[in-house]
Every structure is written in structure tokens, then in C-alpha cells.
């Protein structure tokens, strides 16, 4: 874990157009607040129902040059440099998004999506965009993460409402990744398996290992944040521009949560039958 760390991001002033947009949303000095959000109407209503108000759409991005790292032809191994690069790029995008949320005076960000864009003008370039809706509680309370930063989560408005109802609050969007080189088979190995049905322990092991590493790192992040668990974890598999087909990135993303201290019993679910399919 030693060489797998969050990048140190210095707080920089927001770019001019971002600062202007945020200032107009924040209001003050005789101006009312004005929110923008990518919440659907239903999400918007449930967020308000949960006691929160949208503060504004927040965003951060980072364009990263992803270089090459060669894996030994017939070895299963992690490509640590690439892992670190892709991790850093995402963290930078998220840190910038968080900065916009802090500027807005928000308690947290929900519905965070991490998008990956590739542009025709740069083959080795990958753009990471983090986009979410900053929210604040109508009545002040402890909603921020233990670190004092606004909470972040990839939960939809519906899931956010459900999570709060069931007595938990989101802490932060946690992730872990692992770029892995999967060994090529030797010619002998290939001859032995032709026409037979059998497991390929090599390949199984490689993909298993890579997923485990990504999930373990995600878990580690959640523990660093002082969370009690992670909900809604998803594991993705990516390959980025120009990579050998034997190189894969595994990415685990979820929302870390803590129990709400003053929570009463969660509501019992009701059974309904809808008439439309």
C-alpha cells in the first residue's frame, strides 16, 4: 500500500469562469440563491424530502497523459506506474469538484459520476470528468465527512433518500484501481490446451488478483475516511487508448457510509403492484 497514495492536491483558486458561475449560484448581498442540478425531477423532490436543498452543479476535470509501461511478456503483474497515474487523474478531478462544492458552502455532493473522455486530438490523453450536484441541509447538522470536507457519493437522489431513511449517511466516494498485465501463454501451454475443456489457472489468477487489489484499495480509502462500510460498490474493467490487449484496468467505486446517531427506526417497506409494465 506504500506506493498507493492519494495525490497531494494544493488548493488553487478556481478558474475565473467557474468562480463567476459559483458566485451567481451562491447568491448573497441581496441576491437569492439559484441552483443548477443534473438531478431529475424525482430525485430533486426526494432530496428536498430528505431535508436537503440542491446548491448547484459542481464539476472538476483533469486531462492526463498516460504513458507506457511494459509488462514482461509471460508474466502476470501489476503495472504500478499506470495504476498510480489513472488514480491520480481521477483524484485530481474529484478534488476540483470538491473545491467548487466548498465554494458553494455545500454539505456534500450526490450523484457523482466519473466520466472518461478520449479526444481525437490526443491518443495518449485521457480526460477524467467528475460531475455531481452539491447539496446543503436545511437545518444544520453533522453531515460533512470526519475530515471536514463536504461528503461525496455516487448515489442517485432516490438511493440517497433511502440511505438516510435507513439510518446511514454518506461519507465519501471511495475508489481503488489496479492496472494489470495478463501473461501471454507459452507455446507449450497453448498446445496442451487445444481441444480440451479446462480451467486456465493463469488467467483466472490474474483477473482475480487484479480485482482483489482494486477492491482492497477502495476498502482502505474508506477506512482512512473513518467510515463503517461501503455501499453500492461496482467493479469496472477498462482498457485505455493504445494499450496492449493484455493490459486491463480494474476500478472499484462505492460510497462509504456512517450510521446517523439520532436516527429512529427505519420505515417498513410496503408491497405494491403496478399496473404498467
Amino acid at each position, binding site marked *: 500500500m506504500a506506493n498507493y497514495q492519494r495525490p497531494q492536491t494544493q488548493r488553487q483558486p478556481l478558474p475565473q469562469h467557474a468562480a463567476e458561475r459559483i458566485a451567481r449560484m451562491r447568491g448573497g448581498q441581496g441576491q437569492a440563491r*439559484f441552483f443548477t442540478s443534473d438531478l431529475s425531477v424525482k430525485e430533486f423532490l426526494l432530496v428536498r424530502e430528505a431535508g436537503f436543498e440542491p446548491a448547484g452543479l459542481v464539476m472538476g476535470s483533469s486531462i492526463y497523459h498516460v*504513458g507506457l509501461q511494459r509488462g514482461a511478456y509471460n508474466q502476470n503483474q501489476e503495472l504500478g506506474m499506470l495504476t498510480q497515474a489513472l488514480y491520480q487523474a481521477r483524484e*485530481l478531478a474529484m478534488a476540483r469538484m470538491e473545491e467548487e462544492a466548498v465554494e458553494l458552502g455545500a454539505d456534500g455532493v450526490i450523484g457523482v459520476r466519473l466520466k472518461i473522455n478520449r*479526444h481525437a486530438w490526443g491518443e495518449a490523453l485521457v480526460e477524467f470528468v467528475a460531475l455531481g450536484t452539491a447539496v446543503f441541509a436545511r437545518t444544520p447538522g453533522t453531515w460533512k465527512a470526519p475530515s471536514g470536507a463536504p461528503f461525496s457519493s455516487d448515489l442517485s437522489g432516490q438511493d440517497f433518500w433511502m440511505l438516510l431513511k435507513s439510518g446511514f449517511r454518506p461519507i465519501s466516494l471511495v475508489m481503488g484501481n489496479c492496472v494489470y498485465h495478463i501473461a501471454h501463454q507459452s507455446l507449450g501451454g497453448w498446445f496442451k490446451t487445444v481441444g480440451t475443456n479446462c480451467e486456465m489457472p493463469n488467467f483466472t489468477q490474474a483477473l482475480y488478483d487484479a480485482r482483489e487489489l482494486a477492491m482492497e484499495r477502495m476498502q482502505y480509502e474508506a477506512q482512512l475516511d473513518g467510515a463503517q462500510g461501503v455501499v453500492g460498490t461496482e467493479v469496472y474493467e477498462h482498457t485505455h487508448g493504445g494499450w496492449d490487449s493484455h493490459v486491463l484496468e480494474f476500478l472499484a467505486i462505492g460510497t462509504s457510509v456512517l450510521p446517523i446517531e439520532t436516527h429512529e427506526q427505519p420505515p417498513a*417497506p*410496503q*408491497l405494491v403492484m403496478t399496473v404498467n409494465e
Partner: protein
Amino acid sequence: MAFTSDLTVDEVLLIEEVGFEPVDLVMGSSYFHIGWQNAPWTTNMELGDVGRMMHGARRVALDRMMQHAIAAQADGVVGVRLELEREGHNAEFTVIGTAVRRRAGDGVRWRQASGAPFTCDLSGGDFWALVRAGFRPVVFSFGVCVYHVAHQTLGQWFSSVGVNTEMPAFTQGLYDARELAMGRMQWDAQAAGATAGLVGVSIEESSHGWDQHVIEMIAIGTGVAPIEDATHETHEAPRVVIGAQDW
């Protein structure tokens, strides 16, 4: 009176439920030639002329749809969609929606500050939910920014080969373009009297057959305002339910 609309049966029911009736399917379009603007090879900059054109073409189409809606004596338009079809350097911009009218005849209070019908990209179901929650849609707003992303110099290119590093100039360029598009959408909504905010915002990125380094960012959303009417009926609190069809 007979009406046409592209609403589903469910949507019509929900719109009727909050006191509106569909009137007509309304549409507006415009056909533009997409011109060209030069940008210095190594500079990040907005292409203002192209951007104004891409904005103006959609605005013209939207205004034409609005003329239809006014002629149909509508109080608003729901389900507005913006479409673009490009052939070479020419593009057709189309806006379609369903005009609706307030049954009770108090539609004036639902219109925009200018007296024009409200516009929104909400479905019938979302419209119902929003109105029940005490908000009214005001305006379908959008913001456009066409941006030229700088090319790297040869020296910069050499220094990044084989290295994992952030490219601040590129990051800055696209960040800026998105912020500008979102900021303009916000102005648009506020100017039309959406006092509360914008819901359902999406940001799309496209390159309409330009140089690869030229990108259009468009931000779209629906501006909303609170309903200032003490007698307005709001919905009950949501409950946790388990649907019977999922398992």
C-alpha cells in the same frame, strides 16, 4: 376539441390530473450553414462567432416553436426536445414539444415573466411530480460554448512522451468551455424568471465536422420557480415500497 401530441397515455393522464390539457404538437426549425473561424494554432480560446451562430440557430428554432404555441393559445410547452441533423456544412436545428393549456383559465400565472408560454423538457410524469411538489417549470434553457483547444508545440510533445502527467493546458481549455456553457444556461434561466433554479441539467460535447481541436459544449436544463399560491395542493410524503414485478 381534438388535439395532437407525442405524449403517452400515462403522460396525458398525469398532465390532466394537475389541471392542464394538451393542445397541439408544436415545432420550430431553422437551417443554417456552419461557418468557420480561425484560431491561433497554440492558443486555448473560445470561438465566439461560431458559438453565437450555434446558439442563435437553436434560439430561432425555439422562437418559432413558441410562435406556434402562442397561436394555439397555450400556456406552456412540455417535453421539449432539441435536435440537430447535419449534412456536410449545413445543419437543421429542430425543436419539438407538446403545447398545454390550463383548464381553469388562470394560465397567465403559469407563463414566463414576459407573458410567453412556459417551456420545459419534462415528461408528463416529471411535470406532474414537479407541480405536486409546489414548483412550476418556467423555461427550457441552454448555454453554448464552442472552444478551440490549443495544439501542443513539438517541444511540449517530446517532454510528455512516455510520461504519466497531467496536461494543464488541455484540462484548462475544456474546463473553461464547460463552465462557460453552464454559466450561460444559468443566465438564460434567470432572465426568464426561473427564480428557484435549474433541474435535469445535462452537458453534451460534440464536434460538428470541425477540426478535431474544436469542440462544442452545450448545457441544457429546465428552469423552475416556486408556485406562490396558498391553496396549491402538494403531494404526501413518499413511502418505501417494493414493486411486485421486479422479482
